């Protein structure tokens, strides 16, 4: 992303490029499908979801393919964002003032960069869980191909897959809550790509300074 392109007219700032938004939505849509079909296989009380989505057989057939798409999207996100997701000292301070964040005193938070420490946790949580889900998922996909003397792989997979999935569900619920309900403007930014100056100043002051400084340097 070239810095000069980031300050937009009408006090808007470009936060996510089209590239980033598209990657996000490939991951998001495949994840939601995986979540729904996965929950259907998880509990008999939710098996009706699989029925709604075309039946248990179709859900079983498509779930692994959606998983592949999701993993590829997450890996590509790592290419895009891994550098920006590195933990810094500010992040440590951010975690220490988590109470202020939870009680909406964002002005008392240490100045977050493009991503705050919580977003970094979300990213790395999803990244490592996706790897675990892929490894266990491949075993579950081709269970019948796993030879009997390697059956421990199957036993591990049926535990690892739901545990990793549950962890992503925890992250997912917080992610949806923060982006749709808590931070107004966040959901729009992943669709249109831009945020207001106020949004940037309030939630990502470090990033805002950076954007302003680098665009001034260009002038």
């Amino acid at each position, binding site marked *: 992303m070239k810095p000069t392109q980031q300050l937009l*007219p*009408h*006090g*808007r700032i470009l936060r996510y490029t089209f590239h980033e938004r598209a990657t996000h939505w490939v991951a998001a849509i495949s994840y939601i499908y995986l979540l729904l079909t996965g929950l*259907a*296989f*998880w*509990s*008999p*009380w939710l*098996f009706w979801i*699989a029925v709604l989505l075309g*039946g*248990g*057989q179709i*859900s*079983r*057939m498509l779930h692994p393919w959606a998983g592949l798409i999701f993993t590829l999207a997450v890996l590509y996100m790592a290419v895009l964002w891994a550098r920006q997701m590195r933990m810094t000292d500010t992040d440590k301070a951010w975690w220490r003032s988590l109470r202020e964040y*939870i*009680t*909406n005193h*964002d002005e008392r938070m240490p100045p977050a960069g493009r991503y705050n420490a919580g977003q970094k946790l979300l990213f790395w949580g999803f990244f490592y869980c996706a790897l675990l889900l892929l490894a266990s998922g491949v075993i*579950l996909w081709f*269970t*019948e191909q796993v030879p*009997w003397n390697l*059956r421990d792989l*199957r*036993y*591990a*997979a*049926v*535990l690892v897959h*739901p*545990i990793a999935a*549950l962890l992503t*569900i*925890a992250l997912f*619920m*917080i992610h949806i*809550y923060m982006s749709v*309900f*808590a*931070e*107004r*403007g966040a959901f729009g930014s992943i669709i249109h790509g831009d945020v*207001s*100056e*106020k949004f940037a100043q*309030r*939630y990502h002051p470090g990033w805002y300074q950076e954007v302003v400084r680098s665009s001034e340097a260009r002038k």
Partner: protein
Amino acid sequence: MSQATLRIQKMSGHAGPVPGESTQREYTVCKLIDTTTCIGCKACEVACVEWNDLPFGETVFDNTYQTMPDTRWNYWNLIKFDEHEREDGTFMWLMRKDQCMHCAEPGCLAACPADGAIVQYANGIVDFQQDKCIGCGYCLTGCPFNIPKFNPETKRVFKCTLCSDRVSEGLEPACIKACPTGCLHFGSKDDMKELAENRAQQLREHFNFPQAGVYDPPGVGGTGVIYVLHDASKPELYGGLPKDPKVPISVRLWKTPLKWIGNLAMVLGLVGLFGHYLRYGPKEPKEEDQTPKEGEQR
């Protein structure tokens, strides 16, 4: 035995009570396999393929008399041949008819997520309902005996039905009918257990098999197929029959504690987030509500 034996008492992936759950039957059915009188003729293998009208599959020759290494989706009944040298140097030929054990507490049924794809009838038979099977293969993981087999073409799993269709009509399973030596018996579990114990005692007292005994593993709640073995202390000798089969610990952890912890955590998470919204609301500060909208400022 009548059609009433097909009343279902356990059902896979089922939300809520199972019809017939509390059904009390006078007896559960049982197949007794006396490995000491099996001659390895494979009449039971043929009878199984014939009665169930299973498509022909190629056999695999590996320098033994065994038809193929393992049962298949279209070959539910296989005699496992093992050459065994006893401690005194004498040779024994161990032959064990391998098929579904029809566990009282079936691991396949516990692992299955599809509503009603695996059922246990009131007479104890564990049966797969292929129309409801989603082909996930979890039953392969749940079974400690390596019995359910996946058909890659139809993406469904198959195994021995203990000829539930014949049994419901008062007939014995096809393999029993075909056996020429009488090493296969069929009847109530109590009767078969008694017959097996008597035979084991006979082997111990009169045939110099001091370790002879009955295989009815308690780890899966007992089975609907029981064996008389020359040496019940080493069932592994008989084509890898597990000594103390149990539903795998990971399957049990996954299906009970993890399920409840996970469900509780998901519900508490939703309640917690909703509670947070009620208490603190969105992060947008109040004073900004009065200022003009973004875009109108410049």
